[in-house]
Structure formats: C-alpha cells, structure tokens
C-alpha cells in the first residue's frame, strides 16, 4: 500500500531536483489520521524562497494521490542543518556535479568562532575528484551553495556549504 509518507518522500526539491525533500532532510514528519494528512517541513535558510514552492508541491502530490485533506506546516525548530542530508542524497549531489557538505557534527557550545580567512576545507572536485579546489565565493546561486573551482580540471562547481 502506498502511504502518504511514501508519496511525500518522493517529492523533489524545486531547486535541486536531483534530491527528494526527504534526501535533503527538509521533510520532518508525515502523519495520517482519518484521511487527514499533516506534513511538516523545515526551511534550510530563514529566507529560503523555495519553502512555499515545496509546500505547494507536497499538497499537489498528495491531492492528486487522492488525499483530499492535506495540511503542510513549516517548522522552525530544531533548525535545519546540512548533517540532515542523507548519505544517498550526498551521493546523488555528487553524481549531479555538486559537492556535498562535510559533516559538522554536534554543535559545540560557546562563542561562534570568527574566521578572518576563508576556511581551508577539503572539498574534492565532483567532476575529476581532485582535492585541489579553491573557494571563489561563499555565496552562490542559492543561499545554501558556495562557488568553488577545481585547480586541476579548471571547472567551476557548486558546494553545499555546511550550516
């Protein structure tokens, strides 16, 4: 039997159609009772304009699967982190040509460290695999992506930055 959760999990991200909302970690919960479906999603960034589109896509998918009563809620807490992108989601990003985020791990308490130089992270090129890449800009085509360039194959590529 196809459940509402299964349908919601298949809905794709409007900006990164290679990922489902479940891969991205944006889909937090799907509950079903008495034919009523409640979907909870969380924005990646506070200003992410895709959040409204995600809600309409979810409603459309569930409605066309026969669920008449669908509510999509946006939840702010706990705040999204790139650690919620699934392992298969990271692989799909890589195959698509976007470098996935590194794992941040649990947050350390204390003041937020100030970085006076761009971090020298190891972000291998998603095309040729070379570890020699540099950050061109911390801010890319969407809030969640940075722009980098490979020093070996010279191709620019995007990187989902850790947050």
């Amino acid at each position, binding site marked *: 039997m196809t459940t509402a959760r299964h349908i919601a999990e298949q809905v794709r991200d*409007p900006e990164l159609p290679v990922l489902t909302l479940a891969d991205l970690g944006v889909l*937090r919960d799907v509950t079903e009772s008495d034919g009523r479906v409640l979907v*909870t999603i*969380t*924005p990646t*960034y*506070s*200003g*992410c*304009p*895709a*959040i*409204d*589109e995600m*809600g*309409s896509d979810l409603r459309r998918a569930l409605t066309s699967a026969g669920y008449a009563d669908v509510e999509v*809620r*946006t*939840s*702010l*807490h*706990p*705040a*999204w*982190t790139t650690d919620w992108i699934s392992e298969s989601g990271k692989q799909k990003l890589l195959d698509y040509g976007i470098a996935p985020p590194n794992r941040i791990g649990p947050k350390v308490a204390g*003041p*937020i460290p*100030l*970085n*006076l*130089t*761009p971090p020298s992270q190891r972000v291998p090129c998603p095309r040729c695999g070379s570890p020699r890449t540099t950050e*061109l*800009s*911390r*801010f*890319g*085509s969407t*809030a969640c992506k940075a*722009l980098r360039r490979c020093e070996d194959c010279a191709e620019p590529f995007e990187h989902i*930055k850790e*947050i």
Partner: protein
Amino acid sequence: MSFDNAYESLIDHEDTHWAFGTGFHTALEGVDREVPATVDRADLVAYCLMLGDDSLVLSQRLAAWCSRAPELEEDIALANIALDLLGQARLLLTRAGEVEGAGRDEDALAYLRDEREFRNVHLAEIDCGPGPGGDFATTIVRLLVFSSWKIAQFSRLRGSADPVLAAVAAKGLKELAYHRDHAAQWAVRLGDGTEESHRRMVAAVDRVWPFVDELFHASAVEARLAGVAVDPAELRSEVDGVLDAVFEASGLTRPEPIPTAFVAGQAGREGVHTEAMGFLVAEMQHLHRSMPGAVW
C-alpha cells in the same frame, strides 16, 4: 504555464508562482506560539518589530548593491545576505502581527507602516552606498558591526522566554555567522590592502562609528521585557572583542565610542529616524502602495 510567453506568468494567479509572489503563509508552525502569561503583549509586539525592522531595513539597503558591487560574486553575496535578513524579518514581523491580533500580516507591517512606526536602529538605515552615501568599504564596515552585534544579541535570544523568538534566533544565528565572516574577510583585504583601500576603510569607520553607540542602549520596552528581550548593554564587551580582532588584522584602529545624540535625543527604537530613512521607506513601499497586492 507554458514557456512561450514570458509575460504569461504575470497574469497567471495560480498558487504556482516561482519564486516570489503569492502563497506566503505563516511560517511559525511547529513552534509553541503561546505568549507566556507573564509577558506584556504590546511590549512583545514592539520588540518583535524592533528586531524585524533591523533585519528588514538592512536587507533593503544591501539589496541596492545587486548589480552595483565591485564584482559579480559580490552582487550575489550581498543579495544572499539580504535574503537571509529578509527571511528573519518575515518571521519576526509575522510574530509581531500574530501577537498584536489586529489582522496585520508581514506585508501589512512592512509595506503599510509610516516612517515613524519603524523601530530599527539607525545603523541599519544609514545610506552606505552605492551612490554618494558611501561606498563598498562603508557597506562592509556597517555589515561587520551589525552582524557582530546581532550575533551577540541572537546568541542570548536563544534563551528567550518567548519560544518563537528563541527559535528565530537559533536559526538566524547560523546565517549571521556567515555574514560576519564575509564582512570580516573583506575588512582584512581592504584594510590591509592598498593605500587607497586602507584610506577608504578608515573613512568608512569614521562614517559608521557615530551610529554604533546606539546599539548598546536599552529602550524602555527592552528594559521591561527582562527574560524575553536581550539587554543591549550586555553586548558591548563581546562586540568590542570581535571588532578588535578584525581591526587588528586589518591594520585599523577601533575608535573610542562616540556617545550617541540619537536624533534630537530620540532613538530608532522610539520611531525617530535619520534623514535617510524616509527615502528608504518610500522606495521599499512604493510598488505595494501604488498597486496594492501586486505580485509577479
């Protein structure tokens, strides 16, 4: 919608607009939205407006740089930062409207209030360019000071007795860390760059500094909202510490605080603004007021 006609989307009012336009809805679900019983609702509304207006007004200022920045990557970076701030503003104004309970949503609060009803600090509104009000260096110094101050404020706001403010702060904090790093890294490149870039950074600090002291003055509302609001006076040493680290690496000197005279003795928190604010509000609201409810 087909892609044959670029104008088709302008007349198609389905809920499928992409990216900006219709379909904005309350984004505060999933957080406990009850106002704690001990909290004065009018004060909470005023405080949400203060925080929301700080973000909204700086977002408007930064957006003006898109296509005017020194390089394409910087157009995109400043627009991204503006978008983060706009997202924070939407959440905060939504909360203000919801607690007020008078039917005003985020759009009504952003587009239909007059200048004197805005509660942002003066630092957010001053004109730091593009154009004769400043230049890129001025914008960087303002962003550095603003984001260092906001990080100190939002770090504490995570423990607010208002669960919505706590959630907005926890989320926004991670974005602000990127903004501060971006400004700090530019400050080092420009301050420690050429003679000309250094000269302009020194001028930028001079331009921005008179508006820094206001950041650490508690308004009456903030003073009454202990436990919900953050006391701005608490933030000074943390902000000074961050700025000292950046200034040292940039070859700049942090000036002594310039005691603020506000505007005729009144602060942005009280709705009294500098001359630049009226122009900013007019530009921000013009479209909505001319064509109410316009979407694209």
